[in-house]
């Protein structure tokens, strides 16, 4: 009986230990997440420069955060910074290769990027 009562507590403790083992990672991700969220909010209001700044911060704080790189790719694309956008998208795809939405954004970007290249080559 006593054992059974202790079991959930032990599980919770183990989970806490797991989280405590990577405090830096958790901190980085949550900071990056809040930057990404803010970036999304301002981008939805048309403030793309601010959004790009936030997503750059997010990617800097947590370079393994695929969403931050994806959003950064979109932001750069919106600003006409095609080379930066390509790098950001490629990073996002590498970090989360199974994410269809990232892949879709990247494909759409590539189409426009190719068109821009063709224009300049002519």
């Amino acid at each position, binding site marked *: 009986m006593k054992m059974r009562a202790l079991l959930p507590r032990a599980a919770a403790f183990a989970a806490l230990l797991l989280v405590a083992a990577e405090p830096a990672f958790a901190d980085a991700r949550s900071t990056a997440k809040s930057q990404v969220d803010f970036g999304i909010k301002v*981008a*939805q209001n048309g403030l793309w420069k601010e959004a790009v700044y936030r997503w750059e911060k997010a990617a800097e704080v947590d370079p393994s955060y695929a969403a931050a790189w994806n959003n950064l790719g979109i932001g750069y694309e919106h600003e006409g910074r095609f080379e930066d956008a390509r790098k950001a998208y490629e990073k996002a795809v590498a970090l989360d290769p199974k994410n269809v939405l990232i892949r879709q954004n990247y494909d759409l970007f590539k189409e426009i990027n190719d068109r821009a290249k063709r224009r300049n080559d002519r």
Partner: protein
Amino acid sequence: MTARSAATIASLVLLTFTSACTNFFEVPIETPLSPKMDVTAFRRVLVAGFISGGTDDVDANLETVRLLRSQLRTKSGLRVIEADVLPLAELAADKAKAAAATPAPSSETNNGGLPKVAADVQTSAPPGPAAAAAAAPQQPNAPAAAPAPEKIRSAKDLEKYQSIFSDVAFWKKIGEEYENPLIVTGTILFTPLQTAGFITRNVEQYDNLGRRTVVPQRLYMERKGFAIAPKFIFIDGRTGATLHTESTREEVLYNAQQNTPALSSYFELMDKVIPMFLGTLSTQKIRGTRVLLR
């Protein structure tokens, strides 16, 4: 106690799962495509005129000048100069004639023994508002009052006139008259088309149960329409040098029974050409949507 703890753990798991699910937001974006030409050195643009040919139903020179000016007025940062349209074909024809009549360089140098028109055209064709009026017919010594240029029907006919675009002195003079703008000129060939052959069309069919299906069907059709082949030449009004050249070709075909006026076909075709033209001078924006993730 156990039940409460289990509920806590379950809700924690649920929360973790929910937050792990990707939230996404679809946003509209406008991707800017930078212009092919750097026009920052120019504040004004002169759509001077075109050497046009093809059909007589549309004055492609006049219509193109009007259309490009109105597009540039609304869709570019450049100030559009309102000026008379240059009869470039006539000027080029005169120039060619003058060149043909030029005697060997060893002959008398004063006026080169050229008819006056030749001297004028060679050194500085009268540009600007005065250009049309001052074209060959006004010259008293002009041979046989400078007849109108031959009808331009094909790309080959146009080739004869191409030299005018490389006449740096001519364009520099025009540039000086209008305070060194960016000059837009070129050639426009607007020709009627007629074709006959098999085309594939999707045809709706309904079966006995009223179910609709679309099947491709090959039909023999006679069609007619128009083709437009513009070549835009961008000239630096300060130097008379060609900065950029852009050419394309578009065509439209209708059922042979359909009677579409040439002018409306012209505008239909120019609708396809205009984005390319504007893309040379100003930033074009491509609208689309992307998905932001969190």
